[in-house]
């Protein structure tokens, strides 16, 4: 294989990996902070994609203009979902284990609800639109323009999130909550306000990811589930609750998939990612990049 083919292969892996990272970051925020394993995460990504598609085809908005809009819409949706479901769960659950199990079940319910709502309203067809689909050349290597844009933006948003968590006071509060919920409350961090907000931001990120995805790929109501699974794989790769790990894990998984698919067979893609997922969970449940950490 020539050098250029290698570069193209790795780059295409990185492009899908960027999306994976963005989706996984949102899920990680929810799981790391609140112990809500939101199985419905991919469904909200699908909602973001459908909103973008609808506005783009009906009113001719640029998908780029839809980015903040779908972020805000899903943020609002997330805050209200948290208020309706998870707030009561937090109050009524006797301990964290029970909360986690119940949260998982509620998320399953949300998955059914959202996925079927969308397919009820918009129908189950594949949909899509053209946006920047002409190729861009770098010397001898060429990419589709929209995919490059998707990669750039998803990387940008991931890095912005990580930087925000590192630099701002809000981010400090969030990280404190991740380390020790009780300790954070003792030093005066308002969980009542931070939890809904962060749940909303997690969904907002999946909205952005959906918006980006709809630029480059076709969308359908069942597109969410594979992304949920991928996001789960990514956060196990990177370690539950670790943001940098999620970014690295996402990019890594994208490359693994691309390379693996090239050398074996495209129908092995799903098999490959599950093998990676299960072996990581069994062999290193604390994540590939984790240093010594408290037991979750």
């Amino acid at each position: 294989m020539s050098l250029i083919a290698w570069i193209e292969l790795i780059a295409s892996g990185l492009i899908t990996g960027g999306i994976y990272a963005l989706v996984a970051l949102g899920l990680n925020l929810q799981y790391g902070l609140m112990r809500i394993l939101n199985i419905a995460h991919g469904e909200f990504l699908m909602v973001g994609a459908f909103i973008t598609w609808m506005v783009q085809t009906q009113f001719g908005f640029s998908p780029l203009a839809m980015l903040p809009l779908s972020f805000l819409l899903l943020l609002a949706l997330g805050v209200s979902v948290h208020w309706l479901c998870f707030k009561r769960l937090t109050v009524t659950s006797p301990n964290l284990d029970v909360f986690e199990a119940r949260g998982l079940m509620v998320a399953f319910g949300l998955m059914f609800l959202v996925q079927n709502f969308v397919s009820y309203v918009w129908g189950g067809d594949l949909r899509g639109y053209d946006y920047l689909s002409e190729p861009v050349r770098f010397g001898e290597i060429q990419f589709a323009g929209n995919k490059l844009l998707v990669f750039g933006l998803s990387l940008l948003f991931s890095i912005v999130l990580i930087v925000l968590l590192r630099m701002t006071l809000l981010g400090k509060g969030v990280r404190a909550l991740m380390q020790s919920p009780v300790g954070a409350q003792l030093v005066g961090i308002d969980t009542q306000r931070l939890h809904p907000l962060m749940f909303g931001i997690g969904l907002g990120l999946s909205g952005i990811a959906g918006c980006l995805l709809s630029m480059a790929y076709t969308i359908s109501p069942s597109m969410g589930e594979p992304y949920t699974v991928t996001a789960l794989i990514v956060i196990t790769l990177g370690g539950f609750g670790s943001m940098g790990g999620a970014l690295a894990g996402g990019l890594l998984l994208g490359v693994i998939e691309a390379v693996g698919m090239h050398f074996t067979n495209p129908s092995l893609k799903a098999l490959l990612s599950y093998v990676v997922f299960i072996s990581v969970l069994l062999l290193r449940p604390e994540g590939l990049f984790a240093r010594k950490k408290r037991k979750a």
Partner: protein
Amino acid sequence: MTSRQLLIRDLLVLFGLSGWALALPGIASDFVLSMALTCMMYVVLSSSWAMFCGTTRYLSLATAAFFGLGAYSSALLLGNMPWWQVIVVGALVAASVAVLMGAAVLHLRGTYFAVLTFGMTELIRHAITYYEKSVTGTVGRVLMVVPDREVVYLTMVLLAVLAVATSIIIRRTRFGLAMVGIGADEQRAQTLGVNTRVIKITGFALTAAFAGAVGAAMSVRWTYIDPHTVFNPFIGFQTVLIALIGGAMTLWGPLIAAIVFSLLAETLRLQVPQLYMMSLGLLLILSVLYLPGGLASLRVETFKGWWTDTRQWWQSQRYRWSGDKARDEARARQRAKERRDA
């Protein structure tokens, strides 16, 4: 009621229900029969799920895997073996896979366990799809020789009775108590001398055996099976859902919920499939939020509790909206200020 009376009651209820199930082919139409078949499938799946996963609180999403394994072994063996052996082999295949899977993942608790079992189900599904595509060159399999409808129906009745009877009996043995102990506090159970590893693997294998037997029995109903239908994760989800909505810790909860759901499914799914799935999701959320013990824990007191809760909530809202709260707070502040000044 004493434990003995409870046992007699449970056995009598089971006896009555199985009598109805046996009488059904004589009086009901084909449509009702096929509905009863689906209903019994979910009775077996969710009762056997609740038997292990409900009591130990290990949330397994692998039911679809065992179901599919049973269905596939039935598809492979149906021509060469008598019917009952096919069912037994289906159960054994599923149980042995469960032993392997359990040995690998049962030391993980909670969400890790749920996610891993789901991942393994998908892994098995994709592996079989890949194998069929690349080695045998087909996607699905056609079942040529199928037994009579009557035979299938009787098998399902037998399996359903067996599943419920097993969970009635197991609740009263040391094995069942050990599982409840694991669910309450695994470390304490270990300290008290329960060999948790063996108990968990045995329980998991038992659940899997039932799911495999049901898969083997139900596969003949479709006459054509492919990995996508028999390993459908939805089978696993719906099992969990039914067990949870009915009450995973209880004996009759899963059965009640299975009956309710198959009625709901047949009436709604034909007209608006999405609406059925949406109501499924909504019911799951509502039952987790407001009825964590499941349908079987529903008593008159539950309704009373809801009523007082709603009234209290409404009173507090009225107190806030009418401005009384703001007024009282202002007065309290005023009083505090006067006290400080004095």
